[in-house]
């Protein structure tokens, strides 16, 4: 279950980064610790929100979900179940695709690199990697057999 511990720790870091960017977006923080103003340029661009929802807030929600599933997957009833790891891989996969799109926007459209966004992109890739490694370590689910199912009728004798 080391991969779930790793994804939980990484998701917590991602959650903090997203929370920081989201709080800045809401005006709760003074200045972004970014150095050259590139983070602010990215965060104030029209691409920093989707349908009125700040992208940073989407990050908060996404990382929180990964954190919750990772921690749940460490609890005794779920520790041998496969689905928490599958859920982590699916969520991280969506996150990686979204991060790739945002990174493309930074490079090709906004032409500014937000360091915190890059940190977040690295974190989500690392979570996906941890999830994939975890999937390989888990035994595949056993095929279902029912004791009440009658055995198949014998086929014709082989010629």
């Amino acid at each position, binding site marked *: 279950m080391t991969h779930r511990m790793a994804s939980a720790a990484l998701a*917590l870091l991602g959650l903090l980064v997203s929370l920081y960017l989201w709080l800045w977006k809401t005006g709760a923080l003074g200045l972004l610790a970014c150095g050259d103003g590139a983070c602010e340029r990215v965060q104030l661009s029209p691409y920093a929100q989707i349908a009125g929802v700040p992208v940073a807030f989407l990050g908060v929600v996404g990382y929180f979900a990964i954190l919750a599933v990772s921690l749940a997957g460490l609890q005794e009833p779920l520790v041998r179940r496969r689905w928490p790891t599958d859920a982590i891989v699916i969520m991280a996969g969506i996150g990686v695709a979204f991060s790739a799109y945002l990174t493309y926007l930074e490079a090709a459209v906004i032409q500014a690199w937000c360091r915190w966004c890059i940190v977040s992109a690295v974190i989500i890739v690392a979570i996906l990697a941890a999830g994939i490694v975890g999937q390989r370590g888990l035994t595949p689910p056993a095929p279902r057999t029912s004791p009440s199912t009658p055995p198949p009728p014998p086929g014709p004798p082989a010629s």
Partner: protein
Amino acid sequence: MAGSLKPFYIGLGVIALAGATLIYAARGRGGEITDVDVPPVAPGGAVFEGHVIGSDSAPVTIIEYADFECPACAQFAILTGPDIKQRLVATGQVRWIFRDLPLSMHRNTMSAHHAAQCAGEQGRFWEMHDQIFFNHGRWVPERRPERALRDLAHAILVDRGRYDECMSSNRYMPRLRQLQADAAARGISSTPTFEIGGQRVSGALHYDELKRLVDRAAAAR
């Protein structure tokens, strides 16, 4: 299982606490105050005094050095500006001076500052100031921002012919260069920077922080 996870949970708790502390500490960042001897700029002197709102008899004068492309300046203008105008300027407590400080690191800022001067020529500086800050997304990412700025100017009903003639003449470039040089001579290199009484403070201040400095400057008179 739960027992073996205890160090892990403690580690997560430490990360969460450290992160929360750093974010909390970032709340007030940018409000470092220094005492300065603010040299006055006489109206009508060699250097343009700035764009002024508020009563000449207001007990406190605030000079804002701002760059139109600076995100923190936009944040300040959007989040704090309306409160300042309503609660400090309109009530006669503060005379506000906006001094252009286009920073060389910003690609489109000179065009924006020049557009604001051209709108100011028609008595629409503050309207253009708000348009520029509130619509960063429309002109900052552009390679050639002139068209977007022109649209913003037209939205506040400036005379199109006079605006276009002003922009093409570049006649306010010397003023902007002079304001840059004046700010550099005062040791101001970041925006927004405020001079409030004898104190200088940088960063996108919240209203409460600014009000505290205004009260301090009024009390020191």
